[in-house]
């Protein structure tokens, strides 16, 4: 089975995630799109692990999953802080640093 199937699927998920990061206003939805992009990377890693018949790709996918968990924890804490200070989860209201 061609490895390209998995790689193109992963590229599609990555691009959907990139669209979400750019086009979403709600901060929770932006975090979800980032997760979509990280997941796309994992599919790539597992596909190359199967092609090389080496377990290293799977280990790296596990590391990516761990880092994604840490990122969501910190990200949601920041979202909560934004919500507490601005009374809104919308990212375009975060403009205190704008000149």
């Amino acid at each position, binding site marked *: 089975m061609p490895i390209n199937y998995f790689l193109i699927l992963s590229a599609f998920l990555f691009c959907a995630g990139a669209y979400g990061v750019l086009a979403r206003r709600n901060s*929770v939805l932006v975090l979800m799109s980032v997760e979509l992009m990280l*997941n796309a990377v994992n599919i790539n890693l597992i596909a190359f692990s*199967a092609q090389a018949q080496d377990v290293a790709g799977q*280990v790296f996918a596990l590391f990516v*999953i*761990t880092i994604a*968990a840490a990122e969501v924890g910190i990200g*949601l804490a920041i979202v909560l802080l934004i919500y507490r200070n601005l009374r809104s989860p919308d990212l375009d209201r975060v403009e205190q640093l704008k000149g």
Partner: protein
Amino acid sequence: MWEQQVAFWIIAVAMAGAAIGVVRANNVVHAALFLIVVFAGSAAQYILLLAEFVAWVQVLIYIGAIIVLFLFGVMLTRAPMREERGKLDNSQRLAAAVVALFLFGVLAVFLVDAFAGTELRFRDSMVEVGSAASVGESIFRQFVIPFEVVSMLLLAALVGAVALARRD
């Protein structure tokens, strides 16, 4: 081999549709539910690629933990549970669509160019490679230092999340 291809296409179409759903849904909870479909589909793809252990970790961590965190985030930021047409997106939707389509086009062209003849050949010995025993051995022999670094990262993230979210 054709069963694998049929399974791949069914799961891939479901994943692609759900990914569009995540970035286009007008309801935050629906987006989280679409995200579950994408994660479950990736776990199924890992099984197709004979990465059994990673597939179950994906189910436990992504579907079990991260989605619950997202639903808590939705709850705590009091995101509207009803349909909110247009309020969840900003004004750069067209530009974002152009960027995403351009990126996908470039990636697809390069991937087809680079890996056109590369076939995945599955052998019985590869089931062993994806087993928990083999992955665990690799983590604790070859990758033990990155593993410890990641555990420190998780600890730091835990402390950081508590420090950020605490009310004083």
